[in-house]
């Protein structure tokens, strides 16, 4: 509490001063985490930030601000001055806000400091299903239309994107899509037999796969994941997937657009060093995330490719509220 108070007093005293990298950071930096405590975004940010602080030579005070699929945190940071003293620590969701009708702002109003890591999607099934890999699953679905139950987490969630990818590559698959509140409850339901197949992020399913409680059918990558070397990559079943990959939920640190370039560089350097720390790498590996650690134009490219791929997939699957075209999001490949 005392720290917060001191920070607040310091903010009052220095808040209006011009933000120049020479003296940056001259006060505490606020990090706004888009998701709740104990969630994956929270874990990632809280483990990388202490390492970044060492390089930065300042403190980052993190707070969780939840609600509106992360839009409340995004809008809050967007309303603060672009001086590098408020960081947005978020996941991939904002790139879908516009097409899903969840908000007017997204990462195009921000500058990426560092895209830290990316998750891998994996298709898992409950052990009792009569198929063992991706190929036999597709054959089974086609032979038994409207029988296989897929878990979902609402439009825009990872399962909806993976299912849209499958529909676009294999043709519309006749499955029943059963919605859950999140991948946790859906994976629980999978183990209880309420659903048959679930597209999930690798980290969430990894331990249950290892224990044999779930059957992995394919990883949505171009090559098998080192954590599950025996599970084939989806591209080995159908090469058409290659155009959408690599794809996955990601975590990144952002500042408001218009933040002085030297401050962004300073922050990027700090987070880059933080992401290279062995502690952080170990945590990410264990949870099945791939370290990206990119910034600058590379990160911008990644974001726009991700947004164009995903929004158009959802648009073609009829899951959007408004066409990506309306927001000037180009079709993939254009």
């Amino acid at each position, binding site marked *: 509490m005392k720290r917060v108070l001191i920070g607040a007093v310091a903010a009052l005293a220095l808040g209006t001063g011009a933000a120049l990298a020479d003296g940056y950071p001259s006060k505490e930096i606020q990090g706004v985490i888009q998701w709740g405590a*104990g969630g994956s975004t*929270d874990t990632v940010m809280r483990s990388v930030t202490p390492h970044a602080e060492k390089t930065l030579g300042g403190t980052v005070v993190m707070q969780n601000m939840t*609600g509106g699929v992360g839009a409340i945190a995004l809008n809050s940071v967007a309303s603060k001055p672009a001086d590098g003293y408020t960081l947005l620590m978020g996941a991939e969701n904002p790139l879908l806000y516009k097409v899903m009708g*969840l908000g007017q702002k997204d990462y195009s109003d921000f500058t990426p400091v560092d895209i830290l890591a990316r998750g891998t999607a994996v298709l898992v099934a409950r052990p009792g299903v009569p198929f063992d890999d991706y190929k036999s699953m597709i054959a089974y679905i086609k032979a038994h239309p409207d029988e296989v139950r897929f878990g979902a987490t609402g*439009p825009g969630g990872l399962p909806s994107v993976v299912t849209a990818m499958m529909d676009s590559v294999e043709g519309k698959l006749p499955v029943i899509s059963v919605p859950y509140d999140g991948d946790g409850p859906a994976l629980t339901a999978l183990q209880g037999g309420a659903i048959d197949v679930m597209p999930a992020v690798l980290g969430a399913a990894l*331990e249950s796969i290892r*224990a044999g409680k779930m059957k992995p059918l394919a990883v949505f990558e171009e090559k098998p994941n080192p954590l599950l070397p025996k599970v084939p990559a989806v591209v080995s079943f159908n090469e058409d997937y290659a155009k959408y990959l690599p794809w996955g939920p990601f975590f990144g640190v952002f500042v408001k657009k218009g933040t002085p370039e030297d401050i962004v560089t300073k922050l990027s350097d700090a987070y880059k060093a933080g992401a290279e720390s062995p502690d952080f790498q170990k945590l990410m590996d264990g949870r099945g995330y791939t370290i990206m650690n990119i910034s600058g134009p590379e990160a911008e490219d990644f974001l726009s490719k991700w947004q164009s791929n995903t929004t158009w997939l959802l648009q073609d699957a009829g899951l959007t509220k408004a066409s990506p075209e309306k927001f000037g999001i180009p079709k993939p490949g254009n």
Partner: protein
Amino acid sequence: MEHLMAFLMIFTHPELLMLVAVGTFAGVYVGAIPGLSVTMAASILISFTFSWDVYPALALMVGIYMGGVYGGSRTAILLNIPGAPSAIATAMDGYPMAQRGEAGTAIGITTTMSFFGGFVGILVLALAAPWVSEFALKFQPRDYMLLAVLGIFLVGSLSQGSLTKGILAGALGIAIGSVGRDPLTFAERFTFNMPLMEPGISFIAVMIGMFGVSEALLQLHHVGQPAIKQKITRIVPSWSTIRKHLPLSLQTSSIGVIIGALPGTGGDIAALMAYDHAKRVTKKPSRPFGQGAIEGLVAPETANNAAVGGAFIPMMTLGIPGDAVTAIMIGALYIHGLNPGPMLMVEQPNMFWFIVGALVMANFFMLIFGLTGIKLFTKIVAMPRPVLIPLIMLLSIVGAYAVNNSITDVYWMLGFGIFGYMMRHYGYPLGPVILGVILSRLLDDNWRRAIISERGDLGRFFGGLFSSPLSTVLLLAVIAIFVSQTPIWRWIKTKLFGRNSRSLEP
């Protein structure tokens, strides 16, 4: 042997023991303040203990959890404001007891029974975790739906006086619960295109408003009257009282463990169901329910503390959280480099036994902290009303704000407070409103999941109900309870047994 060492670890490390004690103590008081919840405390702790070792961090969290679930009963008894959703049922009979000047006795019983329930929960966790989690996994969406329907029948138990008014209040609660963006499809419901309505109405804000603010407003009528004198001669209940309620507390503890172990339900529903169960099975309560029946305290308090052990069952065996607090603890385990999941028990059985040990200690500390300091607490009710009423208002506002750091929640809370005051004036019970809000999502989501899974085919849905023994049993329970509350049942009974047995009347 190694497991025994892990279990005893908490006893041999004074610093860990201290942390459990500190956690439990903090939990009792955090739990007692409406709006400051265990979930919130746990999420603050997760960032606070980030750089700690895993054992101290868990010791603190386990303490907070155990203490917090118990603490909710304090303000429920003393002020008629449940400190946590799981203490709603406790207020029903606890507050009338405090009104008679028996707050000390009520807290004493609550504490002992919480200890008992907590112990049953831990015992089941330690001895039967794999089987219980296996059973909990069997619950399909349709079973959760039936459970919610069963829960809705509690309206009958929670409304004193007119059942019609109770049903109306329950329906209102269900409607409140459905406001906002539907989490399954993101469709907006009852939002009138206002961004403020999109996240839905915070259930905690409704609860604090309806119980806290409306109570403060009601107290304004009695500003001039002297406060109730509390007699605190006997705090620890006599052995005969405990023995008398042993069968009931075993039953309600079992309800608590099972409901707690189900990944979709927690202590709040467990406590309400246990209260209802007590009302059904107790032939001769010490006093009529709703007027200070001891059974009405025993049931919810054993159940919600038993649910703590229950919630750990799926967490430890499968890596699936049993409720919001265990979900945060799973996050904590990840941060500390452990991988909670089905392999945790196999690869790190010590972690399991350590948690069991910490829970046992937290339960004892809860008993100690619960039974001491009662005198101080009962002084709260004895405070003059011009001090007490602003205090309730202050607590309510702080509590409502603290849930989401949102001023909108404070407005909701005040609005529902005034509304709740009006409802009380016209004899509408408040319990069913909260019940409706709690069950709204459970019922709605699972009904939709169940019917979607059956391709929207009602025939297949009913077929499914009879294909699984679990669903069939739940369905029969729903039918039995429904029929037993209708006049037809009474009529059949008089015909069959030839005399009017009023004791079973709901």
